[in-house]
């Protein structure tokens, strides 16, 4: 009898703890938790200073509201050999689609480098050229003050850890920012086409 009671208590505690850490059995990983968190809370873009590839500084939040466009953000570093390449070609395709459909006035692409020590405006300019980015569709930027990088990455749910070969590993995702300056959705880099329809269609 006591054994049954103890077992039930352990079982309840176990289920409760598992439920708590998996957000009600919805997720197993931190990445999923982040995505759910962003789409539920819809945090605002932080008011930090970014510098684009032409060397011009702007305030992130204010800029989004001024532009009054949907913003698709990814995080990169220009020395990256793996994930950022995939992200880069995804953005190239998105750019092409935006131009084809004439959505330049409604959707904008932003690639933010989390390696401000290396990726200064000149490097970003060169990278943008390499990616055949059109300045009116696709902006490259990095933080003006490296100390603000943490806050930016935290808001966007990006974890960057240095690998052992001088590069970084980071989670690759596209983060969708509404014209109001709020983060609304996080998607994988291969599922953006339908969302482009959805967001621009519903607006």
């Amino acid at each position, binding site marked *: 009898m*006591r054994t049954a009671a*103890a077992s039930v208590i352990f079982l309840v505690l176990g289920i409760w703890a598992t439920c708590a850490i998996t957000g009600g059995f919805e997720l197993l990983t931190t*990445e999923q938790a982040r995505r759910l968190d962003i789409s539920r809370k819809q945090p605002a873009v932080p008011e930090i200073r970014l510098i684009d590839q032409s060397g011009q500084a702007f305030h992130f939040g204010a800029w989004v509201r001024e532009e009054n466009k949907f913003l698709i953000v990814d995080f990169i570093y220009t020395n990256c050999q793996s994930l950022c390449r995939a992200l880069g070609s995804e953005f190239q395709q998105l750019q092409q689609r935006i131009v084809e459909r004439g959505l330049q006035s409604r959707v904008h692409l932003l690639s933010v480098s989390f390696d401000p020590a290396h990726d200064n405006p000149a490097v970003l300019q060169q990278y943008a050229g390499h990616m055949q980015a059109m300045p009116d569709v696709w902006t490259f930027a990095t933080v003006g003050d490296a100390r603000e990088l943490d806050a930016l990455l935290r808001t966007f749910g990006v974890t960057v850890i240095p690998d052992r070969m001088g590069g970084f590993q980071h989670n690759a995702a596209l983060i969708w920012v509404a014209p109001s300056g709020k983060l609304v959705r996080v998607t994988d880099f291969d599922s953006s086409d339908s969302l482009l329809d959805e967001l621009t269609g519903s607006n």
Partner: protein
Amino acid sequence: MNGTRKAGPRAGLILLLVLAIPAVRSMMEGDMALHMLLQFPLLLLAGWLLTQGLTEQTRAELRKWNHAGIAGLLMASLVLMFWMIPRALDMALSDSTVELLKFITLLMAGATLELSWQSAGLIVRGFFLGNVLPMMMVVGWLYVEAPVRICSAYLTDDQLRAGSGLLALAIAGSVVWLLAFFCPPIRSKEIHDENQ
């Protein structure tokens, strides 16, 4: 008898203290494979050794709550399964309360294993191993096969090694279990025969 009773908990305490040293902790937790495949088992071992210091009286009291080791092995399997959830592993690194809970629950799992294993029959042991070993295989396979990082705090190479290690351990555990299943009856039969 008295000697081993003291030596066990003392070794357990020393092991626990060593594992709790911040440098040792960050060394082990910095590597996913060491975290799951070395720190976890050592914490279980520390819990096991510490429990050997319990008096017979306490054991008898605890046994009332743990008939045939059912409650104890259930608890141990829940704890082990919980800490295999990738997000739990991540949170143990980013949140010190969660890390403390990890230490406590794994110690307790080691303790309940010690208190329950002897009294657990084949079925209860089978239930425990039948839960934990397949879970290790699934998680290990997930880590090996995943195209992306599942734990955000670790590199993909780490993930691959931890996954392979989990798989290897689960397979080794299954083999040992099967051997134990088929061999001891023969041995006890021999002893039985000798006694006759």
